[in-house]
């Protein structure tokens, strides 16, 4: 996903990947971890992301459709 696809635009880098990259700075100079997303924010992003996956809106809409038909 983060690697260059070569045709479709690909400007997105996963925050987790950036977090890992930033650890190289933490393990060495300790300065300039400016592209780290921050652990707490990363976790809140994960939670929001998981909610999107777990709460299957499509299934909810199908359920709604059935109720409407009933």
């Amino acid at each position, binding site marked *: 996903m983060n690697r*260059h696809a070569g*045709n479709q635009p690909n400007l997105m880098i996963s925050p987790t990947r950036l977090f890992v990259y930033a650890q190289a700075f933490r393990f*060495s100079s300790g300065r300039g971890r400016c592209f780290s*997303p921050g652990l707490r924010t990363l976790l809140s992003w994960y939670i929001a992301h998981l909610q999107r996956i777990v709460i299957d809106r499509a299934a909810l809409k199908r359920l709604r459709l059935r109720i409407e038909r009933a």
Partner: protein
Amino acid sequence: MPDKLVYRDWQSVRHYLEQRLRQRSLRLVSLDLFDTLLGRIDTPEQVQKACCRELARLLPGAASDTPLLTPDSVWQARQQAEAELRQQALQQGLDPECRFSDLVPRWLEKLGRKPEPAQVCLCIDTEVRLEKLALYVKPGVRTFLNWLAQQGIGIIAISDMYLDRLLLESLLEDKGLQPLLEQVFVSAERLKGKYSGRLFQAVMRQRDIAPAHWVHVGDNPVSDRRIPCSLGIQGIWLYEKAELRQREQQQLNAAMAAHGSIWRGRYFFSLLQQRLLHLEPESDDFYFSYGRDVLGAAYSTFMLGLQERLRRQPVQRLFFVARDGFLFQQMYQSLEGRRPPDDYIYLSRKVITAASVADGLSLEQAQVAFYNPKQQGLLSICKVYGLPENRLEPLALQHGFTHFDEPLQNWQDQRLQAFLADTQVQAIIRQNGRTQRNLLETYLAQAGFLGGGHVGLVDIGWNGTVQKFLKQAFGERADYPVVNGYYFAFVPKMYSDFGSNNFCEGIIHDSRRDNACERIPAEFEEIFEQGARSLEATTVGYRRLEGRVEPVLKSGHSPDRMAEVTCNRMVTAMHAGVMTHWKHFLALRQLTGCNSSDLLPYVYGMLERAVVYPSREETRMLTRLVHTEDFGHDHVLDLGRHSLGLRDLLHPRTLLASLQQATWRYALFAQLPTGIANFALRIAYLHAVRK
């Protein structure tokens, strides 16, 4: 009541309509507009907030007792005005709708402004302009509408929207959909919405159509399917899962942007990706894609930073330095609005060094030529300083040199010291240096640099050699300008004092800021130079031609230039990619109001990924580029085609030597699985740099 139909794409809708057409039971198709025909790269709320931000900046000041406008105050006033109008419509027995042309005067009043026609126009134009930037025609829509237009039935659009019909029509015109639609009905016109069924009833009366002959398609299961079905109209719910996911992702990205750090930049570039996906054709060219996705982000952020600095500290004229300033000038020239005039100035380290020996050549200066691993002793000195080899070679023989191109490993070589101490040698050098210096001075005056008052100098980087030398050589002149040097990356390793009124700043990277994470462009300078360079050869000198001084470019027959020309196609593709990125970057700048500091953390992350953790394809393709230097040699630089394997890890000394000599050290591990080796090297390198 008609069946409640749900279809997942336009192809399925078309199949259904074909059946109805065969049954001759279809006379009218109505289509919802937003999220059905038109997609959004950003949520409506974000677009409205962008409008408020723009208006806070653009609306002229009112009386002195009126509070200063902020984006938030403009947003609050809009919310209040809108709520009042919707309430008013409800009290009149209509649907809680509002019309933008009614909203704007009330909005202005709440801001303490008189709703004068010019201000009303400004608000409307700003909103419509930003809406146009945020909207795109969804995939498959044009094909579907073109097919529908050939079926001889009515096609109309029905939308629940606060924009007036005429404004909506102008949006559709901009997207090229207006000619395909007979009529547009909008809730704002009659203050009746689809969700109450009143808008459908009004259309039914106006078009005099029986519900049984009418099909409506839209993305909302209630207002586009249940309500029309309850009126006897066949409603179809267009349920596109990918679109829905995308909208959810947009909302998440917008919410995360509030956390700052990389999140704001990530949100910005996610919007940019949407625009590129929907508004630009796909490209199979690797170099175009690399320019668009990697270099485009870095260069565009640099140009945004440059604009911000020019606003803070205006200059009278901006000079883009050959050759790496070329692309920046193209980007600058595509900016709209008032900006300082610009020029392309032919300078190189070669012409600078040639002029710098006007007072003779010292041993320290001569040693500069030996920094090149492929140095050829005195020949290299002649090449770097543009000295006449044929006149100096006989004199070198007198001082014990047998071969003029013999590499000099001992930089304190006695023969070299004797050669430089020779008055005849120095006389030739001085004579040549003075000629070059006079030509350069005339060229600078002719280009408007000398006498320019306060000028900006834009270049890729790195040491600021050109700027330093110009000040040193001509700084005593009364008409020498105040110079602001803006560099993509500024790493003043060689000099620290640039003299008075001679300012330098690295916008993406400035080593004086001591931020390890922004140093990334300096880890692979060559790719940033290649991506920005012009196609012409480097400047090797100047000559007088018809009363003017013209630059002399390197001969097309020199081996490095010939190699370079073979790469021009790749460089052109990268330029095209960068310019595509820049076009959408500018559009989104208006929509998001982001500044360079908002974007930089994410851009550093993008560059870290591209330079330290390149993919195999990136390594393979980028190392095909030929890199030359403008220091007078004819060599080309190997960008690291030979990657290391697991066996090399068993030979630490060879490994270390390879890493030390590599131009792009992280590319050496391209063949190793996972990025662990690159990660370990990164840690080791950052440790070494610190020490």
